[in-house]
């Protein structure tokens, strides 16, 4: 049978798309905060150790499975070790992440336009929660038109890219958006470091706290961050590698992807903390009093910083939110490519049919759920459960199955990678995947479950956590079991 699977036009197309997937919202709003909270400049040490001890070994494992079997997770894991349901778990996780990620992306896109004239006014927190999100008490499903139209725009853009396929859609979009992101963000950083007070922000970010190195939580934070930042362990890199040509140097490409992702994170840390230094300077506060991360940094702190800049803040705001939007779109495309490819492989659907049903169906659910008064509640809880249990749990099981329970497979995958690799994998890869990576993930998962049981999450009432968080996990479990029971079908004619 001839191999009709789509492929990247060249290795560079794969690399730029993999970087586009890894560089997302988290690089801009998560890394700077995590690094600051965990030793500042000294965080570089656990961060580098985590890249080489856990991030790259797991990245190579994902590459090996996807590239060897040239399939998305369900079919690839079925062929590797008869573990199709593990693949469908990962597909369910990516589907759920795609559904809520669109929401955050639409907020960033909306704020890109709100930057002109700084439409959030003086109280950025009230604008975000009350005027923009129209956040309601508890679970309130009333319709919010502004959120609806933002979501429609995001889904139209993402589906247009996905309809183009791997080469003319995903690859082309990344070849346009990634250079654009670097240009936009570089201009932003240059502007930020010239602001008064920027030096104080950089001092806060880079001054090393060596005592923190003795705290195991700092090391755990570094391993956890790298795991999420590199998009490993939940099927994206596996799926992207399935479109590579057979004689590809996987290890050399992986190192470039990992270091490009980290290089962007350092740039983000400089830009964000220079801006926070200015915020402290202009409000007469200390940097440590204005530091924040995540949604609070992007939609509350940054608008404040932008407003402090006067009329010149419009461009600064546009650059920041455009960077978030562009970084987010390339990540979202990679997230949705996993379920699209999985259903193509399993049911023999054509590419366009898979995009229409999977991305189209996700768009409808996403638009219904996230144009409501509870959008931020859904985003917050689903994000926590999907990342900390969905991704970590799926990644952990895939490693344990290969490196603990079916060790001959590890040798097979190692041999597959080494066939054309410029950096050969040896006993150290084997050791890191057997001990370091699974143990760090096991500890992270244990701490998350313990925390949910003892403290709940985010101060939400138990019934909301059960409905939204429990519902998310039930979606993963039921989907993984039900879809793995479906019978495989032959490919349809295009």
């Amino acid at each position, binding site marked *: 049978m001839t191999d009709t699977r789509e492929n990247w036009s060249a290795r560079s197309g794969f690399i730029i798309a993999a970087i586009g997937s890894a560089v997302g919202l988290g690089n801009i709003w998560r890394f700077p905060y995590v690094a600051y909270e965990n030793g500042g400049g000294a965080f570089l040490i656990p961060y580098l150790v985590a890249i080489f001890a856990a991030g790259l070994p797991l990245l190579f494992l994902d590459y090996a499975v996807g590239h060897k079997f040239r399939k998305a997770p369900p079919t690839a894991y079925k062929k590797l070790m008869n573990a199709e349901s593990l693949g469908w778990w990962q597909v369910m996780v990516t589907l759920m992440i795609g559904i809520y990620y669109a929401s955050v992306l639409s907020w960033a896109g909306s704020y890109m336009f709100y930057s002109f004239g700084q439409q959030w006014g003086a109280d950025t927190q009230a604008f975000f929660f009350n005027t923009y999100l129209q956040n309601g008490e508890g679970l309130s499903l009333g319709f919010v038109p502004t959120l609806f139209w933002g979501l429609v725009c995001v889904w139209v853009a993402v589906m247009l890219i996905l309809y183009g396929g791997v080469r003319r859609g995903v690859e082309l979009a990344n070849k346009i958006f990634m250079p654009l992101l670097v240009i936009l963000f570089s201009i932003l950083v240059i502007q930020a470091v010239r602001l008064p007070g920027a030096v104080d922000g950089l001092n806060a970010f880079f001054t090393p706290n060596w005592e923190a190195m003795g705290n195991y939580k700092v090391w755990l934070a570094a391993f956890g961050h790298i795991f999420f930042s590199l998009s490993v362990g939940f099927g994206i890199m596996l799926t992207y590698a399935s479109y590579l040509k057979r*004689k*590809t140097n996987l290890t050399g490409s992986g190192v470039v992807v990992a270091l490009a992702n980290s290089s962007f994170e350092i740039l983000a840390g400089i830009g964000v903390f220079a801006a926070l230094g200015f915020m402290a300077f202009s409000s007469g506060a200390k940097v440590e009093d204005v530091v924040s991360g995540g949604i609070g940094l992007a939609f509350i702190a940054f608008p404040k910083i932008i407003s402090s800049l006067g009329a010149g803040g419009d461009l600064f705001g546009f650059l920041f939110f455009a960077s978030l939007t562009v970084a987010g779109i390339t990540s979202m495309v990679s997230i949705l490519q996993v379920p699209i490819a999985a259903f193509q492989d399993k049911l023999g659907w054509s590419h366009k049919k898979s995009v229409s049903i999977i991305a189209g169906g996700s768009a409808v659910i996403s638009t219904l759920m996230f144009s409501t008064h509870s959008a931020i509640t859904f985003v917050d809880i689903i994000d926590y459960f999907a990342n900390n249990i969905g991704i970590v749990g799926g990644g952990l099981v895939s490693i344990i199955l290969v490196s603990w329970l079916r060790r001959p497979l590890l040798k097979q995958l190692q041999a597959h990678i080494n066939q054309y690799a410029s950096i050969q994998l040896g006993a150290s890869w084997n050791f890191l995947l057997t001990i370091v990576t699974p143990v760090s993930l096991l500890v992270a998962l244990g701490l998350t479950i313990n925390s949910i049981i003892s403290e709940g999450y985010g101060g939400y009432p138990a019934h909301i956590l059960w409905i939204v968080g429990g519902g998310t996990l039930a979606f993963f479990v039921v989907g993984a079991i039900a879809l793995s029971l479906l019978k495989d079908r032959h490919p349809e004619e295009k």
Partner: protein
Amino acid sequence: MNTSALMMMIISIVLLWGGLILATIHLVKNPDEAED
């Protein structure tokens, strides 16, 4: 900037950006074999 912060900033940039440049050069010097 204070000395220790400046040192850590320079080391971070040299290691990560320098590492990226070296990894890219390494990759270019090791092109993939042509498919049959």
